[in-house]
């Protein structure tokens, strides 16, 4: 996803000005993606150039900020984005995965050492996320909560994968002795 799709999604609800788009983009992404307003206007210019949004002055108020609205072509572009399923094909160049694969080439013991140190660091990261969660307001906003959930389950997935790597290495060792 890029800023472009985020702005199209926000504009599909109703027309907005650049400052509103910046604020609402950051809020919708749980404050994990800060934007500067220059980025917003650069993207809006490109969207306008491509015929996906139109720019207008609000009626009877020449001093007001420019409003941006979605065109029919913009709606089509957005609909195509909603329906596009992100695919990891070919497999992503995952830093952790590649590091463990190379470590195996250096011998099982080295691989286990690398797995252990990464598991410890990931567990610490998960603990930190948990502390952040416990420190959250009783009723945090939905986007913040969902971003937090995503970070937690990804760390869990990496930890599970490291467990599987360790089990496979142990199985290999067992077979060769």
């Amino acid at each position, binding site marked *: 996803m890029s800023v472009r799709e985020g702005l199209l999604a926000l504009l599909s609800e109703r027309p907005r000005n650049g400052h509103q788009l910046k604020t609402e983009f950051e809020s919708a992404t749980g404050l994990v993606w800060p934007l500067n307003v220059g980025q917003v206007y650069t993207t809006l210019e490109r969207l306008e150039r491509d015929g996906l949004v139109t720019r207008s002055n609000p009626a009877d108020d020449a001093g007001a900020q420019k409003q941006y609205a979605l065109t029919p072509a913009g709606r089509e572009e957005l609909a195509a984005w909603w329906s596009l399923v992100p695919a990891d094909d070919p497999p992503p160049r995952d*830093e952790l995965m590649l590091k463990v694969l190379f470590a195996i080439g250096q011998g099982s013991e080295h691989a286990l050492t690398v797995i252990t140190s990464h598991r410890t660091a990931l567990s*610490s990261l998960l603990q930190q996320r948990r502390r952040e969660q416990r420190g959250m307001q009783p009723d945090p906003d939905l986007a913040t909560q969902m971003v937090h959930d995503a970070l937690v389950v990804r760390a869990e997935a990496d930890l599970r994968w490291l467990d599987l790597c360790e089990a496979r290495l142990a199985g290999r060792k067992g077979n060769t002795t």
Partner: protein
Amino acid sequence: MSPILEFDDVVKSFGRGLTEVRALRGVTLHVADSEFVAVMGPSGCGKSTMLHLAGALESPSAGSVRVGGRELAGLGAAARSQLRRNDVGYVFQRLNLIPSLSAIENVMLPLELAGGSHRNARALAIEALEQVGLDQRLDRYPDDFSGGQQQRIAIARAIVGDRRLLLADEPTGSLDTASADEVIEILAALPQDRGTAVVLVTHEPRFASWADRVVFLRDGRVVDETTSTAGSTVGSPVAGANR
């Protein structure tokens, strides 16, 4: 904080000669008062053996295990039983409640076995059940409660009175996700609310993440542990690996 539980160079073997299995191979671990420690590791790494030694259910083959500064190796059977009744609580994966006793009677049992008065035992049991979020239907029997609620009763039984150490061996293993989360939250609150130290054996990173410190075992050895300082991993070399 003084350590409530101390393992120093502990070895535990089962069997002899060719059939000897070394479950623990020189484990050193200190757990402080009011600390929540999770122990993780693959099956057969020695996690449960550690808890059995801490709860005086077994004796080490070598090394020292101390609870509250007391060396467990020198304790006779009666002293060990007393330790389990007064100082150390146990929670297992299986919901080991006595079906013919009501919820509150299950929780009162260790206090009554220790010779406490019925009235005092009842008051302390109510207090322990409140700690785990149960304050109603206490005269009903275990079968009347859900699995998660039964495990909460088991935790109340394990902490009732003045116990300073709770040992939990995969306590969420038989529970659905929501109940498991509730049980872990209850365990995580005990150090702060009651000063109880908690040692949790689990293979689930999501549950271990509630702990102050996570210790990793492999082949009977502690291979690594996280630090207990909040925020210590900021800028960790693998933080970027978490995409």
